[in-house]
């Protein structure tokens, strides 16, 4: 049945746009804390891997204005989201350049910085591992010798005695038989470097430990409740005594998911009770000391039948998770289950290794590993298409997974519009239509990729929501999902407004405060529209049912005849019947006896998927149901390439995603454009570059180049496809991360299509294109 929706599915200006455009959003650093505020600075390790022999803080403590100097001696606890392998301050060794070994809290940042310089640390250097292949070599130095003793989620498989923090295996069907039956076998080996989120707002926390034992934190975060939980565990405090407030956030992209530097700020505050303590990363610290995107070395081998059908698929992934796998282990896990791409394949072999290295720690980054592995798959698909003489887009259509077909871990695929996405993108980009540049030095080429992604979360992640009415019939929605700019609060407002017959001007959604707003796991995984949206819908239904009960009791109209519209209650059998919410949602309805019925209306709702199961067989990855659903899509680019210089200009892009139902179509399209451009950065320019000692050589915007307004295509075409998600609010599922995923392979495929040169290591720089163009080693016959 098609619902007649009044708010959901219609465009609206985002609810928080006025505060953004007037600069009145009070980001954490903008909140006044008064003269009592202290500032914290940390000392980072100059070595990528070294034993800490001694730390001498004597001189630092003597500096006037210094309130405390803290080290691992004061805070030896390990913490982590999935695997507790990270230190607040390490006691034994440092595992990456920049790892904090001490913190200073002082009356000014200047003094704190000066005191940091007075701390003397004696190190003993250890061998450094910077490449995941080196990490898994026999005899490699162990980065975490205590791996076997760390606390770990039961669904992760650490390999103590090695540098592998987690290994996810998939063995579906008979891989050898599959390859034996294949008429074509196509292989490729790929490399993805670390990249950085580069939120324009760097990480910041202001923490205050009151003398009565209460910890309050103002954090730029995607994960207030998760942070509270980790803080409670690592500081040995009760959850109720910790309050995490999430002011507006200046960009997240996964970089502010989970917890990183906030735990240091909390430790700093605990050492200076009564004072708010501010810790704000510099841009350099942001690169080193928050998190980066996982690097990847992977080998893809695909067996095809003559008709183009994939029959066997082997994917070996060696993830460079950096110094800690506390969060990155789940990237490795999620991709281990999904690294086939959106294709139905009967025989699958996947190994996904979380390799510790002495590079900066990696965690969540928009796309959660799918961008990285999809590059190899989609590059190999294009190679295969060329070898088999099948059109590259057609090859993807042939293999596109359909509802009910088994995914890699052999659970039926959810309803999806992958073929529709592929067709619409192919049409928009003019697939198959040759274009010529008016500059004789240049050619124009197109590249294509199709992708999928599932929310990566523990099986029992959950969301909850409160809705409370006020006297004038307006509502406040209390949720702990975070508006990162993606439009979360607008989506939640629309879902509640739809259920409650409200106009949007009657709805306000608050940013998280763990004291006030109910539980949300985290705003990650492109899952809050779906998960928190379900909770909000249920809360709205709960409130609606209380409204209807009240009216039924006061007016003796059966509630089956009542409905909500135009900010009040109407009746299907009496056209003139209308009670505005403002008449009764707080004070109730007066009866003929002058008594009152009802009371303040509020609703609560919760959501947790009850069909997921992360406990799979470690040898095959089968036997569970680790993912809730996949969102599918496709993307393509038109690139102009200079045949001499290798310089590329992306002229046009088209991307389509099946988001089930667009709660706010305009904002959904904005996600596609924004994610595409972020993907474009990683495709063409972005890369964290390290020297042989693990020092980052481009820890600033001078040499870490993110796209500017002149570097983006002038012709961007976001396309929405809507095949409803059965358990999504109004059929919605997430799609914000997915928008990045097609870009790297689409660009590399365009270069291969245009020049016959296959770039297997991103970024696809002009230099690589120019210098490899005529090198037979990189030729892909056209």
């Amino acid at each position: 049945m098609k619902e007649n929706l009044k708010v959901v599915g219609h465009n609206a200006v985002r609810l928080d746009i006025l505060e953004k455009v007037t600069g009145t959003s009070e980001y954490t650093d903008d909140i006044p804390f008064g003269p009592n505020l202290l500032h914290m600075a940390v000392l980072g390790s100059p070595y990528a891997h070294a034993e800490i022999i001694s730390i001498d803080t004597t001189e630092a403590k003597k500096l006037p204005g210094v309130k405390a100097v803290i080290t691992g001696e004061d805070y030896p606890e390990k913490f982590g989201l999935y695997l507790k392998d990270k230190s607040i301050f390490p006691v034994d060794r440092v595992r990456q350049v920049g790892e904090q070994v001490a913190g200073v809290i002082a009356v000014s940042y200047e003094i704190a910085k000066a005191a940091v310089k007075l701390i003397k640390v004696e190190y003993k250097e250890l061998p450094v591992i910077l490449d995941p292949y080196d990490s898994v070599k026999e005899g490699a130095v162990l980065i975490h010798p205590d791996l076997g003793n760390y606390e770990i989620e039961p669904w992760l498989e650490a390999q103590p005695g090695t540098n592998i923090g987690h290994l996810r295996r998939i063995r579906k069907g008979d891989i050898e038989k599959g390859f034996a039956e294949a008429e074509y076998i196509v292989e490729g080996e790929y490399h993805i470097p670390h990249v950085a989120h580069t939120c324009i707002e760097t990480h910041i926390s202001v923490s205050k430990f009151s003398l009565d034992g209460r910890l309050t934190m103002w954090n730029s975060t995607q994960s207030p409740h998760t942070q509270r939980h980790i803080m409670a565990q690592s500081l040995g405090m009760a959850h109720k005594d910790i309050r995490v407030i999430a002011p507006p956030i200046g960009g997240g992209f996964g970089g502010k998911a989970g917890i990183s530097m906030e735990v240091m700020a909390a430790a700093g505050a605990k050492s200076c009770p009564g004072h708010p303590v501010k810790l704000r990363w510099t841009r350099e610290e942001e690169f080193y000391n928050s998190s980066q995107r996982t690097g990847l070395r992977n080998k893809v081998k695909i067996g095809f039948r003559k008709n183009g059908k994939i029959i066997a698929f082997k994917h070996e992934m060696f993830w460079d998770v950096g110094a800690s796998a506390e969060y990155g282990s789940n990237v490795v896990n999620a991709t281990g289950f999904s690294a086939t791409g959106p294709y139905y394949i009967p025989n699958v072999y996947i190994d996904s290794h979380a390799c510790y290295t002495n590079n900066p720690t990696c965690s969540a980054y928009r796309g959660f590993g799918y961008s990285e592995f999809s590059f190899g798959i989609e590059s190999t698909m294009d190679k295969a298409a060329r070898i088999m003489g099948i059109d590259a887009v057609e090859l993807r259509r042939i293999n596109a997974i359909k509802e009910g077909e088994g995914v890699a871990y052999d659970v039926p695929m959810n309803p999806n519009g992958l073929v529709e996405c592929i067709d619409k993108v192919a049409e928009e980009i003019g697939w198959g239509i040759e274009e010529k540049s008016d500059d004789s030095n240049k050619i124009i080429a197109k590249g294509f990729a199709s992708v999928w992604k599932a929310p990566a979360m523990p099986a029992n992640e959950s969301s909850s929501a409160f809705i409370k009415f006020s006297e004038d019939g307006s509502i406040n929605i209390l949720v702990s999902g975070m508006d990162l700019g993606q439009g979360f609060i607008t989506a939640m407002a629309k879902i509640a407004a739809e259920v409650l017959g409200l106009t949007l001007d009657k709805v306000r959604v608050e940013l998280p405060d763990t004291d006030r707003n109910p539980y949300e796991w985290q705003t990650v995984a492109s899952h809050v529209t779906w998960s928190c949206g379900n909770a909000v819908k249920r809360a709205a239904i709960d409130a609606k049912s209380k409204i209807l009960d009240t009216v039924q009791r006061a007016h003796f109209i059966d509630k089956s005849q009542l409905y909500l519209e135009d900010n009040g209650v109407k009746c299907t059998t009496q056209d003139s019947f209308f009670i505005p919410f403002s008449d009764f949602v707080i004070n109730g309805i007066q009866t003929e006896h002058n008594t009152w019925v009802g009371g303040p209306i509020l609703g609560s709702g919760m959501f947790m998927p009850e069909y997921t199961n992360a406990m799979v067989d470690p040898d095959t990855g089968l036997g569970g149901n680790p993912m809730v659903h996949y969102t599918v899509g496709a993307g393509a680019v038109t690139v102009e390439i200079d045949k001499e210089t290798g310089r590329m200009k992306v002229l046009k892009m088209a991307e389509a995603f099946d988001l089930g139902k667009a709660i706010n179509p305009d904002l959904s399209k904005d996600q596609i454009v924004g994610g595409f451009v972020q993907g474009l950065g990683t495709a063409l320019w972005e890369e964290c570059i390290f020297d042989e000692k693990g020092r980052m050589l481009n820890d600033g915007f001078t040499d870490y180049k993110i796209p500017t307004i002149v570097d983006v295509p002038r012709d961007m075409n976001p396309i929405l496809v809507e095949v409803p998600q059965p358990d999504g609010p109004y059929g919605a599922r997430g799609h914000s991360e997915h928008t990045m995923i097609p870009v790297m392979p689409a660009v590399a495929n365009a270069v291969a299509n245009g020049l016959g040169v296959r770039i297997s290591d991103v970024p696809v720089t002009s230099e690589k294109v120019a210098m490899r163009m005529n090198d037979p080693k990189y030729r892909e016959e056209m």
Partner: protein
Amino acid sequence: MNHILKFNLNGDPVEVTVKSNEKLLDVLRDKLGAVSVKFGCGVAECGACTVLIDGLSVRSCITFAVEVEGKNVVTLEGLQADGPTKIQKAFIKHNAFQCGFCAPGFIVSATELISKNPSPSEEEMRHALAGNLCRCTGYQNIVNAMNEVAEDNRKGDK
């Protein structure tokens, strides 16, 4: 070395004691409450700290506070003293920002551009805003909003 610094901030005279090495960015934020001016990189590469000094956009993170003695400094707070400007209204209509952290810098840069060139071509406009980084939007809605401002100003000229 301390200085008693006097200048006009958003039209009002201010007097503040600063050290020679204090940045205009920090003085505006920490001593004068102009928190729309953001720290993003500290080396003039992201544009989040952009302010107008005597009508020209300047990176306050690489400007010593003492350099603005006697000058007119305008931040986003000052631009909208009479409510959202035409540029801001266009940005609102086009959902031009997502996280919003870069917005004040963008609006200040855009204001300077429109004051010099009321109806820039799209490429002129992009070129003028290339020093302001945004990680969320992909810039398309900013371009759409600015094109609308330029178009409207073009009509106004006729």
